[in-house]
């Protein structure tokens, strides 16, 4: 990421938080449809928290004219925005522990993204905002780490299904 312009940074921040919220909402709905209520509730909580962060970022962004980027024009370090849970990591039998671990990885990826902006931006306002966002993400990550520590380990059979979709001979 080489962009240091405040408007570009804010455009990326709004998209990052918006995509994180949308993905968590989608995952919550999908998990609920498959009766994994515990994980659905957790993803819904994450969607709510992403929504709060989105509101904060959008409020700051509203004072700036943001570039009108198409969805594929954002310059992300990976295939998708950093706080977005990858579909490959999801399974309908996901345990709460695995879901929290996934969310923790997302928060850390977002923190790294913002921190890289804070370090590389030549613009003082951008660097300051990016450092603030990175700090907020690190706080979210810390909360999730505490949740993980308080959880008992997964049952070895948590992925077993009474109606297993696989039917090998």
């Amino acid at each position: 990421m080489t962009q240091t312009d405040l408007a570009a940074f804010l455009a990326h921040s709004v998209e990052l938080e918006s995509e994180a919220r949308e993905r968590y909402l989608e995952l919550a709905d999908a998990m609920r449809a498959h009766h994994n209520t515990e994980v659905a509730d957790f993803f819904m909580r994450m969607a709510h928290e992403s929504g709060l962060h989105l509101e904060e970022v959008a409020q700051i962004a509203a004072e700036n004219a943001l570039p009108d980027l198409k969805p594929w024009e954002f310059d992300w370090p990976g295939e998708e925005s950093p706080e977005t849970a990858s579909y490959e990591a999801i399974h309908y039998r996901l345990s709460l522990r695995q879901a929290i671990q996934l969310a923790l990885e997302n928060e850390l990826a977002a923190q790294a993204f913002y921190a890289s902006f804070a370090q590389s931006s030549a613009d003082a306002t951008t660097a300051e905002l990016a450092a603030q966002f990175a700090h907020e993400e690190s706080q979210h990550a810390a909360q999730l780490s505490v949740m993980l520590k308080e959880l008992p380990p997964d049952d070895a059979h948590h992925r077993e299904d009474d109606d297993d979709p696989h039917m090998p001979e």
Partner: protein
Amino acid sequence: MNDVITFKAKDYKSGVKPIWCPGCGHFSVFNAVTKAMAGLGMNKDDTVLVSGIGCSSRLPAYVDSYGFHGVHGRGLAIAQGLKVARPELTVIAMGGDGDGFSIGGNHFMHACRRNVDITYVVMDNEVYGMTKGQASPTTPMDWDHSKLTPHGPGVRPFKPAALALAAGAPWIARAYSGNPNQMAHLLAQAIEFPGFSFLHVLSQCITFCPQQTDWKAIVNERQDAALEDEDEAARLFLHEDGFQTGLLYQRQRPTWPPEAAPPNDPDLTGGFRL
């Protein structure tokens, strides 16, 4: 295209909640469709999504545009008819590998040959998921996870890009569900291409083919420009591993139906005189 209101991708979602399995690659295609529509600023009222039958064919219900959930394998027939009747509409046909290459295989070949200006998205997960996991035309020969084919189908899988090229498709690309932003960009290009554009999507089925999560490590993005030479493309499509993504082939040719010349005689009834 709409110049007045700017929609975000989420604004193209209908509000009907998908019931695909969590982790299904079709979620990614759904996201790519809405992102492509937002990126192009498409007018919902001028867009029609047409599908066949199967897990992937549920997608039109989830998009806030016009949609037609058709008959198994017949999405392309409906889509082409619609485009010919209403050429001002943007028509996107979609479905799965079974719907497109088996039940609708003949429609696929002739749609490539006919070159009507539509886009066709095939979400290929190498399995019939809706009916609980039977081998499809793209299933590997040795896939033995179904009671119907306990030792694997024993038939070599289709090569969709090669089939499309041989049948005359002028625009062939491949995307992967693990990269929805690249997919959205390819889909936007497909929609803008004036002719039949075929987007083959490697879309994982997490439930019946969990080994497809390995695709992430295998998929590679094509760095070269799209091939224009049919022979070169044929060599590529026959010998590649099928995991190269990007715009692979593009060669424009006249679309169907050809533009009719204006009648010389303004009295149209003349053509019907004995």
